[in-house]
């Protein structure tokens, strides 16, 4: 069974424009979570989508947004890129629906570098 996949693996951007990161969950999983893992800050929760809706949001500015598609894949958009947005962005999926959401399975991440 395929795990969580993310694309691209690496993304280099300059300050200002938008970055779009993509995630495909494990088949059968309806919940998708986005995390930012910056050096020295640990894993920070960004967004949680379940059944196409945003369920929860971490302490990040509105320029971090996303959506979940009918096939449960998801994209994360980061607008007005800043240098401090450089980090590993991890996507995780779980069965969702109020069930075993603590059993999150992570993808390999997208390394975003902003210069």
């Amino acid at each position: 069974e395929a795990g969580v996949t993310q694309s691209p693996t690496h993304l280099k951007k300059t300050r200002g424009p938008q970055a779009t990161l993509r995630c495909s969950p494990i088949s059968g999983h309806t919940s998708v979570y986005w995390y930012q893992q910056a050096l020295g800050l640990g894993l920070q929760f960004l967004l949680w989508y379940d059944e196409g809706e945003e369920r929860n949001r971490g302490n990040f500015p509105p320029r971090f947004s996303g959506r979940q598609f009918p096939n449960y894949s998801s994209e994360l958009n980061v607008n007005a890129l800043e240098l401090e947005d450089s980090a590993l962005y991890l996507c995780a999926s779980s069965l969702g629906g109020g069930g075993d959401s603590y059993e999150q399975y992570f993808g390999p991440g997208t390394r975003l570098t902003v210069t």
Partner: protein
Amino acid sequence: QKEVEQDPGPLSVPEGAIVSLNCTYSNSAFQYFMWYRQYSRKGPELLMYTYSSGNKEDGRFTAQVDKSSKYISLFIRDSQPSDSATYLCAMSAIVGDDKIIFGKGTRLHILP
């Protein structure tokens, strides 16, 4: 005070030793406790989870939760070089309706 505190390490121990990894937390509402392992350039993988207080054993790994002290531990017996990774504790209050709070992770090196 941060919600979850975890010593970043690095922690270096000889092969075969027992490893003890720990986290403390401040939110008494946390009920679900997880340990993730993250190898370099990879996403975290779920190792173990426990609900409320008590111990849980899985092979060489034992997770322990002491809610009265707000303290959780992961023990690794007969440590192997392949156990070298960053270990993240994580916890949440409510299943299905809450985000998980992660510790910053402890880097572990098992010396052959």
